[in-house]
């Protein structure tokens, strides 16, 4: 199986690479159009800032390329947010694969710290990524912006209010949390994606 990780100006894509290697997959990290469109699975990771990253994707033509991908694509964290319509982070239009906007967390009380960082539970899971999930599992989050619950929501998490921990539409899958940093639970989710 050929798995490609999209290479762009984002931080820490190594952890996704390492996580896949632990599962016995040797991914390629690439920005090459041919390699990306020819891969069986594509992962769109991301740690960074939305506006500068979108600017980079547009300049390199990766924006259209990602939208046109036909194989299963997994967006992670910022990758997920960039797949949405618009982000409040840098007030920027994103890829628009999901017709929903990305919003900033607003604390309601002193205990609501932003970024939402640490282990939190997945509820209302549905779809292929969460096959075999029969109880609430903990996964690792680090983010200050969130995707509201919408018709594409595939898992929810409660922090300040419920938000989309995962979304899915057609061949596009995305998680707000980091499966590559979520221990055994994360490995199950990555394995489910690789088995699509």
């Amino acid at each position, binding site marked *: 199986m050929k798995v490609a990780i999209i290479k762009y100006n984002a*931080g*820490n894509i*190594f*952890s996704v690479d*390492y*996580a896949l*290697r*632990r599962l016995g997959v040797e991914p390629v990290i690439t920005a090459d159009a041919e390699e990306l469109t020819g891969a069986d699975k594509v992962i769109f990771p991301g*740690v*960074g*800032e939305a506006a500068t990253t979108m600017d980079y994707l547009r300049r390199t033509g990766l924006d259209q390329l990602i939208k046109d991908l036909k194989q299963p694509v997994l967006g992670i964290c910022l990758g997920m947010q960039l797949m949405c319509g618009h982000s409040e982070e840098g007030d920027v239009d994103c890829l628009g694969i999901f017709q929903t906007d990305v919003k900033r967390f607003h*604390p309601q009380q*002193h205990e609501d*710290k*932003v*970024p*939402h*960082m*640490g*282990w*939190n*539970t997945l509820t209302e899971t549905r779809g292929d990524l969460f096959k075999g999930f029969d109880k609430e599992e*903990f996964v*690792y989050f*680090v983010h200050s912006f969130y995707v509201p619950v919408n018709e594409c929501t595939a898992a929810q998490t*409660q*922090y300040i209010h419920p938000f989309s921990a995962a979304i899915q539409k057609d061949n596009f899958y995305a998680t707000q949390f*980091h499966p*590559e*940093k*979520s*221990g*055994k639970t*994360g*490995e199950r989710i990555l394995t489910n994606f690789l088995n699509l």
Partner: protein
Amino acid sequence: MLAKRIIPCLDIKDGQTVKGTNFVNLRQAGDPVELGKAYSEQGADELVYLDITASHEGRKTFTELVKRIAAEISIPFTVGGGIYELQDVDRLLNAGADKVSINSAAIRNPQLVDDIARHFGSQVCVVAIDARQTEKGWKCYLNGGRVETDRYLMEWAREVNDRGAGEILFTSMDHDGVKTGYANQALAELSDLLSIPVIASGGAGKKEHFRDAFLEGKADAALAASVFHFGEIPIPELKHYLCNEGINVRL
């Protein structure tokens, strides 16, 4: 609900794990990668690796170690020690670390906190503070507790919070290594003062101490070393205990 975190801390010297009592008298405690993997499998929520080697050669060894940790461990980890400038942060993040912890360098050059937050994001920047109680309040120390500063815990923590730190790792030097519990009063004060998570460090000797750090100290995470390294408190047992005490932990 967001879980309270349990964080084993591994002090690394020349590629090996060590743990001091009151910052001196180092004892050996195993291979860092193997130990980290074992903790991850037992249910540790994060790991902290502190490089206490000062030499240039040792720093290279540590960077290689960070790569091995990233390759083998599937939970987040923070690295600290020997970080003086953005270039050091870049090197360690590129090796696969999720966060960096800065201590002396931040006090000497507070702008470093702003710079890390701006370049890599606040979530990457953990500011560690070693402090000791004095008549005038909690005083900050540098270089593993060897050098006294003119900064005080509360005002310094507030400043780095405002400069963009993502978390505070507060070690009470009075409590560290003596196993009589965390500095809960100071922790609670910090937690009320700050808008970022506080990690309690120094003083864990039994399971009740962790409970108290979360309930009385209002800590978001509790860090410990020797009670884990020497098997005095197994992590699964600790987490079940905390769960029974009504604390939300990842099981």
